[in-house]
């Protein structure tokens, strides 16, 4: 067991000092019902179970254990729930947790409809929610809240990461295969903007319904477009089917697919044969350095799988939240919010990460390339780092955010 992250004792800001008198009191009535309770609201039984699911609960439990199981002498408790990918179920569970069960913070929140709904409840109930496995950029714009943190990645960072890097690399004509959902269309628009700003050209797009299995028609359309890059703006089974069809119909090597939201798990299920050479932006990869390997090894021993960026984000954000509670000396949401934005995040997941006023956690993103089967030397050896995108470039500039919490809005 490693010691608690060391930085939390290092960072002493003015805000901590002003709250110091409260913190030193450490009275348990500074903590709602004497417990700091974290709820992991995730998809336990549906299509996103591999992206977050039970392993997400385990990641949060690990964080709590590593933190020592208590904060300022107050015990920490982890509970979990299944939102079934339905916004109403998620909102109802969140409401019950905040109102009845004394939950102080809800973590994970896969599925953007659920994330938005829970963010609304969190804002209204003035309790914390940390979104790790959804990409919806509305969370730090129109739907921002002082109690909602968007931690791991978002649609903007995906567009910046993959789009920008590819255009810089010379891939400047694009064709999009987009899932006809708000998420896909948003991602397509975001990347198109990046491409055009960099002097590239978008030659066309095909929008397919969710759960399309046969992408051969789209592969032909992509071929006919003559674009150098086929941007795949979908995720999960849709993205995998699209990549398979592109490979089958031989769009490479003149044309190259670029997956805009591909998860580590998707590469596992594609297999390196098909996935090799794909570019993807992910905030975390288990094999990046000694620290990530150490965490991933422990995670693997508990869950039987390697962590993806959502799992790592769940862990890191839980530690950060607990650090903020410790520094604030209370779990009162406003004080914790202030500390969360004050403290810097330095761990295996992020270095020099910080949370902006609109709730965006800013940290470096990474562009990876999938290795070929020959290059892969051991189990789970899938990715090679192409480039690091500094946090400031990866995320939406504050002056573009429509968040009402920012000055001037």
């Amino acid at each position, binding site marked *: 067991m490693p010691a608690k992250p060391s930085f939390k004792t290092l960072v002493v800001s003015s805000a901590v000092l002003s709250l110091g008198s409260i913190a030193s009191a450490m009275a348990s009535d500074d903590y709602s019902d004497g417990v700091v309770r974290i709820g992991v609201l995730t998809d336990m039984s549906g299509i996103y179970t591999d*992206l977050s699911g039970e392993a997400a609960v385990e990641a949060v439990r690990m964080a709590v254990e590593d933190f020592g199981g208590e904060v300022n002498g107050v015990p920490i408790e982890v509970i979990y729930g299944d939102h079934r990918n339905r916004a109403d179920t998620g909102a109802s569970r969140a409401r019950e947790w905040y109102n009845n069960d004394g939950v102080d913070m809800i973590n994970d929140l896969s599925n953007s409809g659920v994330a938005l709904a829970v963010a609304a409840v969190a804002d209204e109930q003035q309790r914390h929610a940390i979104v790790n496995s959804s990409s919806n950029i509305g969370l730090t714009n129109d739907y921002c809240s002082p109690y909602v943190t968007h931690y791991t990645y978002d649609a903007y960072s995906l567009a910046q990461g993959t789009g920008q890097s590819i255009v810089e690399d010379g891939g400047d004509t694009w064709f999009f295969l987009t899932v006809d959902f708000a998420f896909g269309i948003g991602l397509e628009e975001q990347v198109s903007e990046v491409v055009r700003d960099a002097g590239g050209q978008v030659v066309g797009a*095909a929008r397919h*319904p969710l759960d*399309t*299995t046969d992408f*051969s*028609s789209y592969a032909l359309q992509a071929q006919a477009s003559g674009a150098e890059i086929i941007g795949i703006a979908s995720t999960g*089974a849709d993205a995998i089917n699209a990549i398979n069809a592109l490979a089958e119909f031989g769009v490479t090597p003149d044309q190259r697919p670029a997956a805009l939201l591909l998860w580590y798990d998707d590469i*596992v299920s*594609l297999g390196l044969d098909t996935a090799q050479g794909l570019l993807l932006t992910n905030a975390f990869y288990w094999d990046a350095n000694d620290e990530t390997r150490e965490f991933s090894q422990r995670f693997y021993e508990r869950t039987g799988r390697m962590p993806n960026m959502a799992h790592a984000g769940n862990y890191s954000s839980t530690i950060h939240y607990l650090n903020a509670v410790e520094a604030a000396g209370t779990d009162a949401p406003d004080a914790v919010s202030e500390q969360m934005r004050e403290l810097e995040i330095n761990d295996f997941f992020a270095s020099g990460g910080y949370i902006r006023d609109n709730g965006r956690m800013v940290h470096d993103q990474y562009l990876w390339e999938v290795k070929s089967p020959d290059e892969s030397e051991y189990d789970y050896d899938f990715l090679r780092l192409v480039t690091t995108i500094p946090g400031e470039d990866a995320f939406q500039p504050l002056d573009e955010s429509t968040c009402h919490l920012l000055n001037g809005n």
Partner: protein
Amino acid sequence: MDILGIPLQALLGQLMLGIVNGSFYAVLSLGLAIIFGVLKIVNFAHGAFFMLGAFTAFLLAQYMGLDYWVTLIVAPLLVAAFGMLFEFLFLRRLYGLDPIYGLLLTFSLVLVLEGGFRVAFGSSGQPFATPEQLRGTINLGFMILPLYRGFVIVSALLLCLVTWFIIERTSLGASLRAATERSELTQAFGINVPRLITLTYGVGVGLAAFAGVLAAPIFHVNPSMGSSLVIIIFAVVVIGGLGSIMGAIVTGLGLGVVEGFTRVFYSEFSSTIVFLVMVLVLLLRPAGLFGREEG
């Protein structure tokens, strides 16, 4: 030559791909139509059996090292056996009741199967390699077709024709049709009707599983791969005309083509078009395109 701004050559290519996609629909809707014809039950688990076929093939290849060609035969047989067991133990208790109960039971089976596979193998799916002999492409003049897609058309249509032949042209098929129309009379002739029904369910389920194995190398193998299929397939059967074997096959192919062209002209609508077609057909030709009008 262009049609609506699309080169003729590209349209021919799309037609070809539509037929490939339609081959899957044909095999699936054939199975569903047979089951509905004899059992009078909407087999809501049809998509789940499709998934089960693909997964069984994956497991046979992964853990027993079986060749793709062997799994193409063995996996549908295993799934058919499972289906027959399900029919024998549970489904047959619901015969003679409102068909809605059969629908509900098969729907429950979907939950059990999909949920079970998600617990066991996760939600994100498994890689499945195209068999060695079928990698590569053929040049058709107007398009480059991956060899495997060509194989899909040939094997699917062959299977459909064989099934059609057995039902419409052999004595086994004759007793089956007799059992459908006059169950008790057929029984009186010494034919074991319950066994025939079990067999029919097995054949229908086996066809779905075969489509699943066929799909495994090109579509993503995951627990929910069949979940949105069943209502589309059932729409195909209704459009073709309930009880019409040929109707199911032809409509399956036709729908594949219609869907393919929709993907070119109004892609967003491509998964909905089948329902528009169904409304129109049912309002204009109540018994479906190939069904007999019943008094």
